[in-house]
């Protein structure tokens, strides 16, 4: 089944390019460390999901590019064109002349309704080119105006028009500081709207990715391209083909559906985080060997201690003994040491994958009291190696990983809202203070719900 990607705004378009490039590069890489046949099947499966064939034989990304100003889209198109291996569709771009100016309301209430028809038409054309549509990836940042505001608007329209297709928003969580001043407002408006119209929010934190670039990839001067490549790697590690369960040794048809059914059925818990292991620069990779027990041990500790990468993991954190009352009252404002999960998905790729033992992730103590590991844990695998790593593992987790960042954002936005700062910029475009309050209310509930998972 196919996935149609909608890239929105500067961030969405830059990342979208890297994602398609990473997917394509990986699936056409000769050293998948598996048989030719399997490699071909892997390639075909990746292609069905993300690319379509055009007459002259160059695969075309199943993507629609949307931005309110032309610069980034032009840049993205030409980069894809230069690669020569794949490209974007000729008529799959929509851009305007003037951006949303970091104003969520402008993206949502002005650009959205004004360009709804054109954008939805583009999307529909892309959908019609799929034999079967699983759903949508909507790549956007939540700090700016176009990605966040227009992204929320388009997601809502997709929900209205393609109610049975799945919608996953790939959200770029802004740096804690220093990108956009009104990012906290834009973020709470985006998140609260997506909570109503999207099925899952796969969240990438810029701060975390930045740290990975610095600490794991050993990049001295980190550019956005570096960040985006790490991010593309993370997405690829989740959505490249894996074997399906019911028909062994066939590749999974609908990863998006499988993932959502496992991870986000509950309406209050839709935020997903991704963790990867190993992640390192090519130089270090040459001197490294990996074992499945080692990788999985680290990944598990990353999960329970809430670490964002395999460096600086707190090995003191242990799952609580079930049955014992927690020590003192836990609160999200205090440090949550143990990260309680609702559901996790582990994806293993590479050599000897059948020997990997994931029992460590099936410990009931890892999960909230009302969900058993049978419901809460699932695993995908493939023998095919991914992106130059002989063995690699990814974890998609619906857990408390994101409560703290969310709580921070809500808190900061609330402080600003209490002083009424910047509100006039939003009311100018038809928003009301009531809309902000709705968003705060919803997100406070999400924070509280995640907070009450345990331990």
């Amino acid at each position, binding site marked *: 089944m196919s996935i149609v990607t909608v890239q929105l705004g500067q961030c969405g378009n830059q990342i979208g390019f890297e994602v398609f490039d990473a997917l394509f590069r990986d699936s056409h890489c000769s050293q998948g460390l*598996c*048989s*030719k*046949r*399997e490699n*071909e*099947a892997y390639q075909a499966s990746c292609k069905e999901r993300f690319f379509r064939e055009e007459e002259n034989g160059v695969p075309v990304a199943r993507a629609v590019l949307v931005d309110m100003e032309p610069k980034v889209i032009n840049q993205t198109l030409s980069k894809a064109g230069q690669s020569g291996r794949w490209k974007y569709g000729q008529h799959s771009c929509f851009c305007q002349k003037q951006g949303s100016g970091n104003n969520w309301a402008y993206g949502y209430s002005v650009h959205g309704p004004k360009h709804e028809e054109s954008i939805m038409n583009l999307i529909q054309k892309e959908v019609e080119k799929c034999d079967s549509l699983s759903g949508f990836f909507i790549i956007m940042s939540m700090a700016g105006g176009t990605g966040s505001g227009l992204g929320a608007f388009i997601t809502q329209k997709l929900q209205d028009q393609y109610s*049975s297709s799945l919608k996953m928003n790939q959200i770029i969580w802004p740096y804690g500081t220093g990108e956009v001043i009104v990012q906290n407002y834009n973020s709470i408006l985006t998140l609260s709207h997506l909570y*109503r119209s999207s099925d899952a929010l796969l969240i990438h934190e810029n701060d975390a990715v930045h740290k990975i670039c610095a600490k794991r990839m050993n990049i001295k001067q980190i550019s956005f391209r570096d960040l985006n490549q790490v991010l593309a790697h993370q997405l690829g590690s989740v959505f490249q083909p894996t074997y399906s369960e*019911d*028909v*062994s*040794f*066939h590749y999974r*048809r609908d990863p998006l559906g499988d993932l959502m059914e496992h991870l986000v059925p509950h*309406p*209050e818990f839709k935020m997903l985080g991704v963790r990867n292991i190993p992640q390192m620069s090519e130089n270090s990779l040459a001197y490294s060997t990996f074992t499945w027990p080692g990788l999985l041990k680290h990944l598990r500790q990353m999960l329970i201690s809430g670490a964002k990468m395999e460096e600086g993991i707190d090995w003191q954190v242990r799952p609580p003994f079930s049955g014992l009352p927690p020590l003192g*009252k*836990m*609160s*999200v*404002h205090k440090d949550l040491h143990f990260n309680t999960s609702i559901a996790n998905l582990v994806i293993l790729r590479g*050599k*000897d994958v*059948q*020997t990997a033992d994931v029992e460590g992730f099936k410990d009931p103590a890892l999960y909230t*009291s*009302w969900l058993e590991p049978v419901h809460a844990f699932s695993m995908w695998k493939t*023998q095919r190696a991914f992106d130059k790593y002989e063995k690699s593992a990814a974890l998609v987790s619906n857990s408390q990983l994101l409560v703290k960042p969310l709580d921070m954002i809500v808190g900061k936005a609330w402080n600003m809202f209490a002083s009424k700062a910047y509100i006039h910029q939003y009311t100018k475009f038809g928003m009301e203070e009531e809309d902000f309050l709705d968003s705060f*209310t*919803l997100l*406070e*509930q999400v*924070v*509280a719900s995640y*907070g*009450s998972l*345990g331990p």
Partner: protein
Amino acid sequence: MLGAKADYLLPMDCTRRLVAEVQGALDSCAERQRQLERSLRVSRRLLQVWEPARTLAPEPETKEEAATSACTPNAQDLKELELLTQALEKAVRVRKVVSKAGQRDRTPSLTSASNAVTSGATAPARSQAPSQLGSHASGARSTKAVQGATVPDQSADPERRLRSRGDRTQMKTGAQAPGLGDQQTAPAAVPRATEFTLKEKGTLLQLPVAFRKAASLNSRLWAQLSSIQASDSAGITRATKTEFLHKLQAASGLPSHRPSAAEVGAQAQSLRKACSLLRLHMQKELSTAPTDWMQEYRCLLVLEGLQTIVGHCLHRVQVLQASMTEQLPGLCPVEKPTQSSSHCGGETDSAWSPQLLLYSSTKELQTLATLKLRVAMLDQQIHLEKVLMAELFPLINTQEAGGPPRLALCRAAYSLLCEGGEHFLTVLRDDPID
């Protein structure tokens, strides 16, 4: 208090019922999905290039590697190894059949495939369709006029037979070492002979004679069966059967009939259907404003008629309920005449033979299928909603006032009952705590 645990545990019997209901729905959905996946696989395969070797390509090797690369084979690996062996055996078998079929009489399915051969020197012999194929085959030939037009019929050509045998042996070796063998033999021995796509040449296909015969006999037999059943129903046999049933019933010591679980279920089902149809009819009736007094009167009659029917239905429910607890002169179901006559279309139509459902476009078919599913889903959702209402309201109402567990229950109940589980509710404290 943020982060406070707010678990509310349901009573055991409630848990059991709710979980069983939802799980049941999940299972039936999963089963349906599996069925669909199966038929999807078949359909997809049909739309790809018709190349028998391809269809089971990726499996064998994968398994081989899986098995060999494992350091210590566990139970899982052994099972996989066994599967691998089976798959390999199957591959060999299928290839034999395929090559035989290709050699033996060129079943129509492969005839058109053979038409696709374009390689210059050896092509003419193959491009010739066997003579028994008739108009379709000759049509095919004309499309391939480039190499086929002037070549005489060579279906008895010894050279051709010889080559076919050659094909077979090559394919056999291929089957023993699937990965390598195919690559080696594919270009040489089976040059694109199997490159057949439904899209390009589907209209050349023709059903085998044997099958056509069997199929038409089959539909005749079904038709006869239904007609005989209809005519028999009033006859003497029917009386004898009824008598037999009564006698059996009497001999069992149960003088009257009690409804069985299956019957109650069926009755409930049909009454539910009745109720929804009646409601539908009522809404239809109310949605059109009468323009004159005749229509007004008609509308009134319909509404009153519906009232009467609902009354009957209610009566039936009561009788059923009563008969489950006490003895009542029963309804003894005997074989009934089927309703074949009521919706009989053509002469070949009968209760048991398939009715045609005509569609004109993909879109229409999709709409139809989606609607069908939606209706089924709504049915299921309504059912679950009622179950949830029945289970949750008593709990909510008996909870002691206030208290966190109750709030947790109310919130979850609100989401499930009022929002179809899609949205949730926030409960804020009126006085901000400091």
